[in-house]
């Protein structure tokens, strides 16, 4: 069957590899991917482990449906204690690596220790070798993958690797596969760099037996047809996530000049349609029919002629609106640079935007920035700062430390200008007009983030019957209110919690969030997941059992964070969300701020729905019901 992939525990310090079975009982309780990773992280990591020390554990996995007949089943999940936040480090990545890992016989890797010399892992049909990577150290992401393909004389190998930023322990370095697929958030590339681990390469010829092949083929076809029938899929096929910008900027949901505005005036140059001039086609992740990835060649500037992939909506913000730049070429060049060197586009853009606001306000000067004019809209300065952060050069060395540490170095009240939660910076979205989205970023287990719990469909002000269909008793019972106004505080705690479970299920199954209820209410969720699992694996899990598994894993992430010092105070928005109203946008978005008391009320409600106490700690009753406890176990 498909579910005989193993768990490998690899100790880079003593170069040992231990291979273990994953019991079916564990799969039923935690599924796979991020779900089982949460279990492994909690149990394999000692409290207080230095995120960049050998005792931190890095976990790499495919989902329960990884490589199988489920829409876009190529997602790979990576976890560790984050060097950026000190809390859960967790990031999900597309491409083709996860299925190849599974073809090679492994579903989860637990990597600990630190290699004495730069190394890479070669995982090939059930065997794992720790190999010398001295010749790869210093190479960028693209060079590394090409060199490994050549060295292993196989163009079909799939590689996860770090670039120079990961080697230099930039605290928001990424783990990359392909040209643009990035485990982008929480600094997992730095964890890999700290372990002297340059790359993990997988190649497998194993078969993943499908429990009900004909029915699975037919069901997958029907799911794909359903996905492609949505307008969102048609739009993504043509413009990728970049399409989001036109609408959100028109309304006033786009953080601009760090946090000085919520709309980029005259920002048409960043619209997705401009990609037509540079696009050479689209790319897709494993098994995906939406193919949302642009493939392009830069036409102008220092990187003219360079082939690259992406960018995403996040880069339009990171190197566009947040830094006040209106030239798509800047976005394209910076997107290329962060992918080449292996850095999180969002954190990089946020650090530069923050520095720019400090510079404009006179809190820092040319003396701090190595003479670089960090006024908003200085395209050249933005590109130069990306290079300097990746290389930890001059002021870039400070920014490479991430928001809280950088503000600690700069001082002078600079922390007040960070747009971060739990030590991780936010997307360039401005959630002041949207309380549900604000609660989502405040409570996300990995810090300010839009794909942990964001009820994206809330901003559509959908008809109530649609909200009822999505959020009521689907599959967990809910008797509270549902309100179809995005400016409301009522009923939003449940929407956030529901999305949290849904996204955890998606990450645990190893499929793509764009193929679930995220930006459209008409895409698959628990009911369809249950059917996919049964037809592919033969495992019968009801929608409610999948919900419970998601809850179990999310609760473990919460417990991990609490073990590392998280309190209710960490589930809090940046102060300016409460005190500074949005200055721009359409009437629905202008003059808005978050009401502190109502936000606190929403947070209480969210904790209550989670069965967490008022401090945000899971109650004993919840833990008993989920069958988990505070004491680490070593079942696997």
């Amino acid at each position, binding site marked *: 069957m498909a579910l005989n992939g193993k768990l490998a525990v690899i100790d880079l310090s003593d170069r040992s590899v231990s291979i273990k079975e994953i019991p079916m009982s564990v799969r039923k309780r935690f599924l796979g991917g991020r779900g089982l990773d949460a279990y492994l992280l909690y149990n394999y990591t000692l409290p207080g482990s230095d995120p960049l020390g050998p005792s931190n554990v890095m976990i790499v996995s495919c989902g329960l449906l990884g490589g199988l007949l489920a829409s876009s089943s190529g997602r790979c999940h990576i976890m560790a204690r984050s060097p950026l936040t000190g809390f859960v480090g967790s990031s999900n990545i597309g491409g083709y690596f996860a299925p190849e890992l599974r073809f090679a016989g492994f579903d989860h890797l637990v990597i600990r220790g630190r290699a004495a010399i730069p190394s890479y892992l070669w995982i090939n049909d059930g065997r794992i070798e720790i190999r010398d990577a001295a010749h790869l150290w210093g190479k960028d992401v693209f060079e590394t993958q090409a060199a490994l393909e050549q060295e292993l004389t196989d163009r079909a190998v799939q590689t996860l690797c770090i670039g120079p930023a990961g080697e230099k322990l930039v605290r928001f370095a990424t783990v990359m596969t392909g040209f643009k697929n990035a485990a982008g958030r929480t600094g997992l590339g730095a964890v890999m760099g700290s372990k002297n681990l340059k790359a993990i390469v997988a190649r497998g010829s194993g078969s993943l037996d499908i429990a009900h092949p004909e029915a699975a083929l037919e069901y997958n076809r029907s799911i794909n047809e359903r996905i492609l*029938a*949505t*307008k*969102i899929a*048609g*739009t993504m096929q*043509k413009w990728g996530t970049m*399409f*989001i910008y*036109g*609408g*959100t*900027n*028109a*309304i006033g949901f786009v953080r601009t000049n760090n946090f000085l505005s919520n709309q980029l005036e005259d920002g*048409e140059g960043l*619209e997705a*349609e401009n990609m037509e001039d540079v696009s050479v086609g689209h790319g897709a992740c494993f098994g995906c029919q939406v193919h949302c990835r642009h493939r392009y060649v830069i036409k102008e500037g220092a990187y003219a002629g360079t082939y690259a992939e992406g960018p995403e909506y996040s880069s339009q913000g990171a190197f566009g609106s947040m830094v006040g730049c209106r030239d798509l070429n800047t976005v394209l060049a910076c997107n290329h640079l962060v992918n080449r060197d292996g850095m999180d586009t969002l954190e990089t853009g946020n650090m530069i935007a923050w520095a720019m606001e400090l510079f404009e306000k006179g809190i820092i000067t040319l003396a701090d920035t190595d003479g670089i004019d960090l006024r908003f809209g200085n395209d050249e300065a933005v590109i130069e700062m990306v290079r300097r952060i990746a290389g930890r050069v001059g002021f870039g060395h400070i920014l490479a430390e991430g928001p809280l540490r950088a503000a600690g170095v700069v001082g002078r009240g600079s922390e007040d200008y960070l747009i971060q939660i739990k030590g991780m910076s936010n997307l360039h979205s401005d959630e002041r007009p949207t309380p549900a989205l604000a609660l989502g970023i405040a409570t996300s287990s990995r810090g300010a983030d839009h794909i942990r719990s964001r009820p994206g*469909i809330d*901003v*559509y*002000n*959908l*008809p109530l*019957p*649609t909200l009822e269909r999505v959020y009521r008793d689907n599959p967990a019972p809910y008797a509270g209110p549902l309100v179809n106004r995005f400016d409301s505080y009522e009923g939003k705690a449940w929407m956030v919690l529901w999305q949290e479970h849904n996204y955890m299920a998606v990450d645990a199954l190893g499929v793509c969030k764009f193929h679930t209820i995220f*930006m*459209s*209410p*008409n895409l698959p969720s628990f009911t369809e997941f249950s059917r996919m699992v049964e037809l592919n694996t033969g495992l019968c899990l009801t929608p409610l059992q999948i919900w419970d598994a998601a809850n179990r894993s999310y609760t473990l992430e919460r417990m991990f964070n609490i073990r590392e010092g998280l309190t209710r105070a960490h589930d809090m928005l940046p102060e300016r969300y409460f005190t500074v109203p949005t200055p721009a946008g*359409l*009437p629905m978005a202008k003059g808005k701020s978050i009401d502190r008391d109502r936000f606190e009320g929403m947070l209480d409600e969210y904790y209550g729905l989670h069965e967490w106490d008022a401090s945000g700690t899971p109650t004993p009753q919840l833990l008993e019901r989920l069958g988990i406890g505070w004491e680490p176990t070593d079942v696997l």
Partner: protein
Amino acid sequence: MLGEEDTQPKERSREERDAEVRCLGCLGHFRPPSGADHADCPHCGASWRLTWLDAHSVKIRGPWKKS
């Protein structure tokens, strides 16, 4: 983005939904003339630039700045 996606799946056919946009200002649905690069919302009068995914499917690109 906002409001254009499948907001009334039961009431509208795919064809209707693809041919319509939802005004970002008042959230009302309307059908722009085929191939138009901009259109006014008949409900609130707001003007929008349009983008066509294909000959039959349209979405709002951004605000139309009246000169």
